[in-house]
């Protein structure tokens, strides 16, 4: 074994090349996280549009709750309702499909069918749903169509969460339970469910978050309803005086999302 094995298990990297790889990754991670950190900082800035975080103030956070400015509450309730519904639907569907998929011999086609939408541009899915249901079938868009496009967005992720645990599930356990006299329902509740639980929990959190923060698919299918990301989008694209408030609001949402993601990844990682 060469001396390099100390630092890297497989021996592809030397000190210099490893440093270069880390540097390249760091550039991308800075571009990814600088705006997130910037948002958090600027939400406390007295003049957020200057890009300079000081002098610091809590003014915008208080202003969020005053009279006219509190218009985000309605969209928040809408988004939470849609998020919960999508999370329930996507997780249920993902459990039904995900626990059977490893048993199905010709599963390649099924996987492609369910996962291909993951790659499609969001705007394309939104327009397709609008044209097909509103245009060809003549059904008015609204709450249901937003739930549908969010479901389309969340299901592949939910399915992946379930598959991560279900592919490692040993089906001989179920046979053992059956031999010991457990009926199908008890087999599922007592054996399968506890083993799938980390995947299910992660799927519930992730599906909710995907729906809660979704914008491009919502743009064309929202009918008359306003979700929170849409509200933020129109307010921030409009160069209005609301923008300072939007920073504070977005910072709160982002912090809340961050906490939920950390909980979900922790649960999923602990199962591995």
């Amino acid at each position: 074994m060469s001396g390099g094995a100390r630092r890297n298990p497989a021996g592809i990297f030397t000190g210099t090349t490893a440093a270069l790889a880390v540097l390249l990754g760091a550039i991308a991670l800075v571009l990814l996280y600088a705006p997130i950190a910037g948002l958090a900082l600027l939400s406390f800035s007295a003049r957020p549009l200057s890009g300079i975080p000081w002098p610091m103030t809590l003014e915008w956070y208080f202003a969020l709750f005053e009279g006219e400015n509190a218009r985000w509450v309605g969209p928040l309730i809408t988004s939470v309702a849609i998020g919960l519904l999508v999370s329930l639907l996507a997780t249920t569907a993902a459990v039904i499909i995900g626990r059977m998929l490893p048993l199905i011999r010709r599963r390649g086609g099924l996987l492609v069918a369910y996962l291909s939408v993951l790659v499609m541009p969001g705007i394309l899915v939104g327009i397709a749903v609008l044209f097909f249901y509103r245009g060809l079938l003549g059904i008015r868009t609204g709450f249901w169509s937003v739930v549908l496009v969010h479901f389309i967005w969340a299901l592949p992720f939910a399915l992946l969460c379930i598959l991560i645990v279900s592919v490692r599930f040993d089906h001989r356990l179920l046979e053992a339970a059956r031999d010991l006299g457990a009926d199908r329902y008890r087999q599922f509740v007592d054996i399968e469910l506890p083993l799938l639980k980390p995947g299910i929990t992660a799927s519930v959190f992730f599906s909710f978050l995907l729906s809660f923060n979704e914008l491009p698919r919502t743009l064309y299918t929202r009918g008359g309803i306003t979700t929170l990301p849409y509200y933020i989008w129109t307010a921030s694209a409009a160069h209005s005086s609301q923008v300072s408030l939007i920073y504070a609001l977005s910072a709160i949402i982002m912090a809340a999302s961050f906490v939920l993601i950390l909980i979900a990844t922790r649960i999923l990682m602990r199962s591995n």
Partner: protein
Amino acid sequence: MSAEPIAAGTTAAPRRPRAVSLERAAVAALTVLWVVGVLLPILSLIVISVLQGRGLSFIWTVSFQPYADIFVDYRIETVLRTLRIVAVVTAIEFVLAFPFALWLAKGLREGWTKSILLVFLVVPFFLSPAARTIVWRPILGREGLINTALMSSGITDAPVDWLLFSEFAIHIGLIGPYFPSMVWPIFISVSLIDDELIKASRDLGATAAQTLRHVVLPLAMPGIAAGVIFTAIPMLGDNIASTLLGGGQVSLIAEGFDDLIRAMNFPAAAALGSTLLGVFILTAVLIGLALRRRGGGPDIFAGMKQ
């Protein structure tokens, strides 16, 4: 745990036919709903794109006018500009992501650092993309952070204009959000390569570069292909970076949709969508064929099992 439990499950299936067939029926029913309710509407864009529109309803006469509408000068310019920006940003992502993914998979031991880095690469998928893009405005703007810093330090006298509402801003706005989409597939495919294979290559006297070229790269090919698809295709339809950072100066395909829908030219919007769909299907088929010629990539299940 290899394929054994799965094999045990399938051979045992005939012994408990009713329960299993009910569950299979549920999967089949969901799949039919999915195909009819989701995939069919997406594919129907192709049909709609050759119809004539009257408001949001369509007249069943075939017309190729919608395609003519999207290939007029300024729209084709938008399409080409989008393709160019997406190609450049995807190439940048690859350069940034490949060494990093390789290092994550084979240069970094299991432990806290690795777990934290992986969490950092998961988190952005679930955050609001618009919220983290608007912040570039006060950073890059004429009176923003960078210009203030440049001018107060005396490097420039006048604010630098091309930082915001420019192609530069769009590139910057796209690189961050699409980085994880490139890293993940490469990371997974490289993680699947057996360390012994790499060690054997090194022990037989191959240099690190030769090992990379002849052992790692061929085995990582499916991941690289998936990374390119996962990055480039969704980026083609990105409306957030271009709307918030292009500021109307630089419009991409996504704004094309917006214009066409605002002008009530729905068949042309469908034609634009079909073009995107065509690019997507073509890329997927080409990459699928290329991978099959190389003997196929690893099963997605293999990746999850380790």
